[in-house]
């Protein structure tokens, strides 16, 4: 872990999380949530230093192929099978400021909808050249990008005939432990998004639409890979002007 150069330390507490925008804990349509959701009220706590601080990851942790899922598990000279895509975008906070130095970790099924995991039993085959994980750290403007293949949809045991739409899981580290977020990216135009019980845990249609990446024709590379643009928003933090003890802004 290393410090980011030329960045003023941020010490404001985070905006309160809008828990009506996020999925509630108990969502019976997604059956596993029934026994795994807390039933008592959460204890609300304005951020102390334990919440407003967080680990920082330097670019030195990254390997050359970390942001290339087409090749980072493939044998030399080979590549993963599937529709080649580039996923890119920015990490911003609720104040619309870029979040530099954010660590993004992503994972996904292969083009046939199969995960490389010992608990996965879908009959679609593994791709010997596809592992399904990657990571990137945002630049000074909050940008990230990676190459992958478009994941396939797959069935899962919930209802008798439930399917996940094509999606990529994202884990995001901002600058504070209270900003920690895991979400999923969906693909523009996929009719299965609106049939999915996990998507339906989100109460607000606009919040779902915020998770749907747009086909980005301008950044599509001719004869190579289509681009999808996916921006992620993390919690904003108060300016230190609004803290009890002013420490300059």
């Amino acid at each position: 872990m290393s410090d980011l150069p030329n960045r003023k330390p941020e010490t404001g507490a985070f905006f309160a999380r809008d828990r009506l925008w996020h999925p509630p804990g108990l969502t019976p349509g997604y059956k596993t949530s029934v026994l795994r959701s807390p039933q008592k009220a959460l204890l609300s706590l304005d951020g102390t230093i334990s919440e407003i601080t967080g680990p920082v990851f330097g670019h030195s942790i990254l390997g050359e192929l970390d942001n290339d899922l087409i090749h980072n598990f493939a044998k030399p000279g080979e590549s993963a099978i599937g529709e080649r895509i580039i996923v890119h975008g920015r990490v911003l906070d609720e104040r619309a400021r870029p979040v530099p130095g954010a660590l993004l970790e992503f994972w996904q099924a292969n083009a046939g909808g199969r995960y490389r995991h010992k608990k996965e039993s879908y009959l679609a085959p593994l791709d010997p050249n596809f592992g399904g994980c990657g990571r990137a750290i945002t630049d000074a403007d909050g940008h990230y990008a990676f190459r992958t293949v478009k994941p396939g949809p797959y069935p899962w045991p919930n209802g008798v005939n439930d399917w996940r739409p094509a999606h990529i899981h994202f884990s995001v580290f901002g600058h504070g432990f209270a900003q920690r977020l895991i979400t999923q990216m969906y693909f523009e135009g996929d009719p299965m998004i609106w049939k999915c019980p996990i998507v339906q845990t989100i109460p607000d249609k606009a919040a779902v639409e915020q998770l749907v990446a747009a086909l980005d024709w301008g950044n599509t590379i001719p004869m190579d890979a289509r681009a999808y643009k996916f921006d992620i928003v993390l919690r904003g933090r108060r300016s230190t002007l609004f803290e009890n003890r002013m420490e300059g802004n």
Partner: protein
Amino acid sequence: MVQPLGYLKESASQTAGPYVHIGLTPNHAGIGGVYDTDLGAVMVNDKTLGRRITMTGRVLDGTGTPLKDALLEIWQADAAGLYNSPSELRGSADPNFTGWGRCATDGVTGEYRFDTIKPGRVPFRDGRPMAPHISLWIVARGINLGLNTRLYFADEEAANAEDPVLARIEHRVRVTTLIAAGEGDHYRFDIHLQGERETVFFDI
């Protein structure tokens, strides 16, 4: 009409799902050769200052069954009570301690384990010292938004008694859900997602 504030909405959370290990602990999940090591697997080295401790436990659902597919992250101060973070302005934390760890619960037993150090005390917002604590974040299949809680230490009775966060817990019988029992340098902390012993979770 008024001026628009221009704020954005935080991206909505979605569950980490059953295959979170592929993304966050790929070596543990058997996907070797992509990253050298799994992030957060090692928090200390032989130069780290402070008392070495081990914390273990399980995450239990509403039937008392341990989750075998959960993932935990912890975040804590160093032995002197400083965080290894750019937002820490009170001093420089121990460079040999990351303060951050990540562990998947065991696929057979549901146990997690962190090898770390006992944290020092850090101040509450008003400057009063908080008792030594470790912040936890728990995700899993079936958890729609990561859960935040804290671990406190049973052998810090005096500090716990004056901790401003523990003091906020109205139902005093629930305070014990945040206290890890210690035996020597080993602390045990089970997290109950539901039920009579439901852990106090925070909206931070």
